[in-house]
C-alpha cells in the first residue's frame, strides 16, 4: 500500500489548535506503554464485567450488585471488549475503530455509574466494579488515541485509517449464505432489543450497538455489507420481507410491540411520500402531516364510528382510494398557487397550511366534532380471500399453532402498505418523471431549459406525496381508532421530515429506519420521560454533525458529502496514487 505523503499529514496537524497540541504532548505515550496500558485497560474492563457495580441491594435492576457473572448492563461490555481485544492485533490500522469501541465502553460505564449514584443518592452507592470499568475504558481510550495522534503527527506513516479498503466479496454462493444468515440474525437482535426492558440495560445496549457499528464502520464493514446487499438485493429484500412477516410469531400473542411497529410502518409509508417531495424534488414541505390528517379524517368519517357526524360505512379499499384522492386534490389546491414560488416561500406556505388544517379540524364541530375528534372507529373489514365472511381486523387468529393478537392484522396491512409505497417510489424515482424531479431540485432554470415544465412537475410531486400521506392516514385512523386535531401538530410534520433526513434522503430503507428511530426509540426511552426529547435533540445534532448524509444514504448523496475523502482514497487504494494521476495529465493535455 502506498504510504501517505508526509507533507499531507503535516498540513492537517498544523490546523489543529494549540490546546489539542498541548493535551497530546502531555498524554502522548511511547510505543511499549501504549500496549501495556491498553492491555491493562482491557483486563480491568474484563474484571469489571464480572464484578459488582452497585453496593446497595434495592432498586438498581439487573442484579448489578452480584459478582461472578455479567448481569444487567454489564453484559453489553463483553461484545465491545471482544472487539477491542481483536483490534489489538490490527494496530495501527484499527486505532480509529479502537477509539470508537473504547468510547462505547466508557459510555456504558459512565452512564451506569451516574445512574447508580443518582438512584442510590450519592457515589457511595457505586461499588468497585463500576470504578474499574471507568478506569479500564479510559485507559483503553488513551492507548488507542495515542496511536491516532502518532499518525496525525506524521511520525508513523504506515497506519492510514482503515475503512477504505477496496471491497472484495466472496463467491456468489457465499454471498447468498451470508445474507441468508444475516437476516435472521438481524431479526433475532431486533426481537432481543425489544425485550430489553430496564432503561439502564437498554441505554447500555444502544451504546454497545452504536459504538460497535461505529468501530466496524471505520474498518470498512458497512461499505462491504452495502456492496453485498447491492449485489444480492432481490434475495435480501425477500428475506427481510420474510423476517418482517415472521416477527408477529415471536411475540407470544402480545400486541404491544406490534402496535408500536404499526405506527412505525404507517409513518414510514408517509415518509416515503415525503421523500418524493423533499428528497427527489427538493421542495421543503413543513405541513406534510396535514395530508396525512386528511386521509385519517376521510377514513374516520366514512367508517361509521361510534362518535361521528357522518353515518355511512364505505368499504375500506374504496376509502383508501378516496382518502388518497382527497389528499392529492387538496395538495393540488394548495400547491397550484404556491409552487410558483421558490425555496423558502413554499416552506412558509406549507407551514401555514398545516396550521390552517389543524385549526379548521378543531373548530368545524359540525363535521369533525372539533377537539373531541371522531372516536370509536370500528376495526377494518375487508373481503376474505378464503371464505364468504369478511376478514375483521379486530379478531385474533391462530396460525400454525401460534396465536396472533388482533394487531397482527394491522401489522401485515402496514407491511403491504409500505411495500406498495416503496414500489411506487422506486418506479417513479427511476423514471423520466423522477429525472425531471431531480433536475428541478438541482437547477430549476436549467431544467426548464431542458423542456421540463417546472410548475407541472412540482405540482405532480407535491400531489403524489400528499396522496401517499393520505393513504397512510386512512390506515392510521383504524389503528388508533380515533382521530382528533391534536394528532396533527407542527411537531409531527417536523418529526416526519427529520425521519426522512436522518434515515437518508431519497432512500426507502432510510425512510423505514428514520421512522423506526423516531417512533420506536421514544417507546423504549419512556423511563426518561421529561428529558427524552432533549436527549433526542442532542442525538440529532451529533448525528448531523458526524453523518450528514443520513443513516442509509443513497449513493449519490453519500458521495456528495464524502467527496473529498473518497476521491483521495480512490487514488490511494488503486495503488495509482495521486502522483500517477498528475503524471498522466500533462501528457493528455499536451496531446490535445
Amino acid at each position, binding site marked *: 500500500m502506498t504510504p501517505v505523503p508526509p507533507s499531507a499529514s503535516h498540513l492537517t496537524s498544523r490546523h489543529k489548535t494549540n490546546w489539542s497540541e498541548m493535551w497530546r504532548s502531555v498524554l502522548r505515550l511511547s510505543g511499549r506503554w501504549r500496549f501495556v496500558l491498553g492491555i491493562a485497560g482491557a483486563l480491568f474492563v474484563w474484571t469489571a464485567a464480572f464484578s459488582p457495580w452497585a453496593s446497595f441491594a434495592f432498586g438498581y435492576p439487573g442484579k448489578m450488585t452480584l459478582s461472578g457473572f455479567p448481569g444487567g448492563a454489564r453484559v453489553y461490555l463483553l461484545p465491545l471488549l471482544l472487539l477491542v481485544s481483536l483490534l489489538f492485533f490490527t494496530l495501527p490500522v484499527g486505532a480509529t475503530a479502537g477509539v470508537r469501541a473504547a468510547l462505547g465502553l466508557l459510555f456504558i460505564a459512565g452512564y451506569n455509574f451516574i445512574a447508580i449514584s443518582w438512584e442510590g443518592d450519592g457515589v457511595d452507592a457505586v461499588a468497585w466494579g463500576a470504578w474499574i470499568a471507568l478506569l479500564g475504558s479510559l485507559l483503553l481510550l488513551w492507548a488507542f488515541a495515542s496511536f491516532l495522534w502518532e499518525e496525525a503527527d506524521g511520525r508513523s506513516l504506515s497506519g492510514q485509517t482503515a475503512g477504505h479498503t477496496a471491497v472484495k466479496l466472496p463467491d456468489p454462493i457465499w454471498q447468498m449464505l451470508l445474507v441468508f444468515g444475516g437476516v435472521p440474525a438481524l431479526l433475532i437482535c431486533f426481537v432481543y432489543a425489544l425485550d430489553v426492558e430496564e432503561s439502564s440495560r437498554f441505554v447500555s445496549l444502544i451504546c454497545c450497538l452504536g459504538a460497535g457499528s461505529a468501530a466496524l464502520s471505520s474498518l470498512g464493514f458497512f461499505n462491504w455489507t452495502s456492496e453485498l446487499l447491492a449485489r444480492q438485493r432481490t434475495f435480501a429484500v425477500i428475506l427481510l420481507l420474510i423476517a418482517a412477516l415472521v416477527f408477529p410469531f415471536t411475540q407470544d400473542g402480545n400486541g404491544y410491540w406490534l402496535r408500536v411497529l404499526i405506527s412505525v410502518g404507517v409513518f414510514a409509508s408517509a415518509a416515503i411520500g415525503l421523500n418524493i417531495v423533499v428528497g427527489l424534488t427538493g421542495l421543503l414541505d413543513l405541513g406534510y402531516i396535514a395530508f396525512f390528517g386528511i386521509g385519517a379524517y376521510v377514513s374516520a368519517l366514512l367508517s361509521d364510528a361510534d362518535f361521528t357526524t357522518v353515518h355511512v360505512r364505505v368499504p375500506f379499499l374504496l376509502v383508501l382510494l378516496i382518502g388518497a384522492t382527497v389528499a392529492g386534490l387538496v395538495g393540488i389546491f394548495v400547491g397550484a398557487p404556491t409552487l410558483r414560488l421558490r425555496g423558502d416561500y413554499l416552506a412558509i406556505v406549507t407551514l401555514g397550511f398545516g396550521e390552517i388544517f389543524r385549526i379548521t379540524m378543531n373548530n368545524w364541530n359540525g363535521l369533525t366534532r372539533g377537539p373531541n375528534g371522531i372516536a370509536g372507529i370500528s376495526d377494518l373489514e375487508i373481503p376474505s380471500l378464503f371464505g364468504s365472511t369478511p376478514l375483521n381486523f379486530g379478531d385474533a387468529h391462530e396460525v400454525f399453532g401460534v396465536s396472533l393478537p388482533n394487531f397482527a392484522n394491522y401489522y401485515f396491512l402496514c407491511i403491504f402498505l409500505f411495500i406498495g409505497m416503496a414500489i411506487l417510489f422506486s418506479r417513479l424515482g427511476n423514471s*423520466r418523471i423522477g*429525472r*425531471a424531479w*431531480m*433536475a428541478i431540485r*438541482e*437547477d430549476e*432554470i*436549467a*431544467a*426548464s*431549459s*431542458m*423542456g*421540463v*415544465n*417546472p410548475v407541472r412537475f412540482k405540482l405532480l410531486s407535491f400531489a403524489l406525496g400528499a396522496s401517499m400521506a393520505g393513504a397512510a392516514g386512512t390506515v392510521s385512523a383504524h389503528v388508533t381508532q380515533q382521530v382528533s386535531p391534536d394528532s396533527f401538530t407542527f411537531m409531527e410534520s417536523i418529526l416526519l421530515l427529520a425521519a426522512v433526513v436522518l434515515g437518508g434522503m431519497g432512500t426507502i430503507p432510510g425512510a423505514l429506519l428514520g421512522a423506526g428511530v423516531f417512533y420506536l426509540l421514544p417507546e423504549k426511552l419512556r423511563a426518561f420521560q421529561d428529558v427524552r426529547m432533549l436527549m433526542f435533540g442532542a442525538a440529532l445534532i451529533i448525528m448531523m454533525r458526524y453523518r450528514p448524509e443520513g443513516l442509509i444514504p443513497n449513493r*449519490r*448523496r453519500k*458521495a*456528495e458529502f464524502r*467527496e473529498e475523502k473518497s*476521491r483521495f482514497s480512490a487514488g490511494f487504494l488503486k495503488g495509482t496514487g495521486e502522483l500517477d494521476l498528475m503524471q498522466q495529465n500533462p501528457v493528455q*493535455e499536451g496531446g*490535445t
Partner: protein
Amino acid sequence: MTELLQVRGLSVRYGMIEAVKDVSFAVSEGAIVSLVGANGAGKTTILRTISGLLPPVAGEVFFADQPLAHLPAHEIVASGLAHVPEGRRVFPRMTVRENLDLGAFVCGQGNNIDADLERVHTLFPILAERAGQKAGTLSGGEQQMLAIARALMSRPRLLMLDEPSMGLAPLITQRIFDIVAELREQGTTVLLVEQNAQAALSLADKGYVLESGSVVLVGTGADLLMNEDVRKAYLAE
C-alpha cells in the same frame, strides 16, 4: 437562405435598468451568428429572453416564422431551440448519462435516443467514458462539453451558446470552437454569444457587436475582424 430566427426591436428591462434596447437581428438557417460585446452589453439577456427565461418589454421573436414571445421556456425548447446557458449549469449531482437523458426530455417517453447518444459520444468521446460519473465532478471543459451535448440531445434546429469559452484554458476553448464549426457542418444553426471576439468572429458567418444594450455594428465575421473600432475595443490592438 431563410431566416431561422428573427429578433425585431427587442427591449428587456431589469426593473428600471434597460438592459437591451431595441435590438434587431436575424440568424439564417445553417449559419453561425456571433453576438460579441463587453460585460454588460446585454448579450446574455438577449439569449435568456429568446429562450423564454426573461420576459421582453417590447419587440418580437420569430423562430421558424412562429412567434415565440411569452411562450414558457419549456415549450420553446420543444420547438427546436436549445440554449446552453452561461456557466454551463449542468445538473451536478446527476450522472453524465442522466444529464444527457434530461437533454432528450422533450423527445418524450419511449423515444429512441440511442442515435442521439451515439452522435454526442462521437463528438465528445470523453462523455462516453464518464457516463456514470456525477456531472459536478467533471472539469470545467468537460462540463462545457456536457452542457453542449445535453442541448444537442433535444435535436435542436438552433443551438444558442452563451460564453462557451468562459473560464476555460485556451486549448480547451479551441476545441470547443472546433466542435461548434463541426456542428455547423452537420447542419445545426448556431447563435454564439462571446466575449472572446477573436474566436467568435473568425468562426461566424455574420456578427453583431453590442454595446450597452444596442447593436452598434453588423457585418460578416471577417469584415468585423478587420474593422478598426472592433480591433481597438475588443482585440486589444
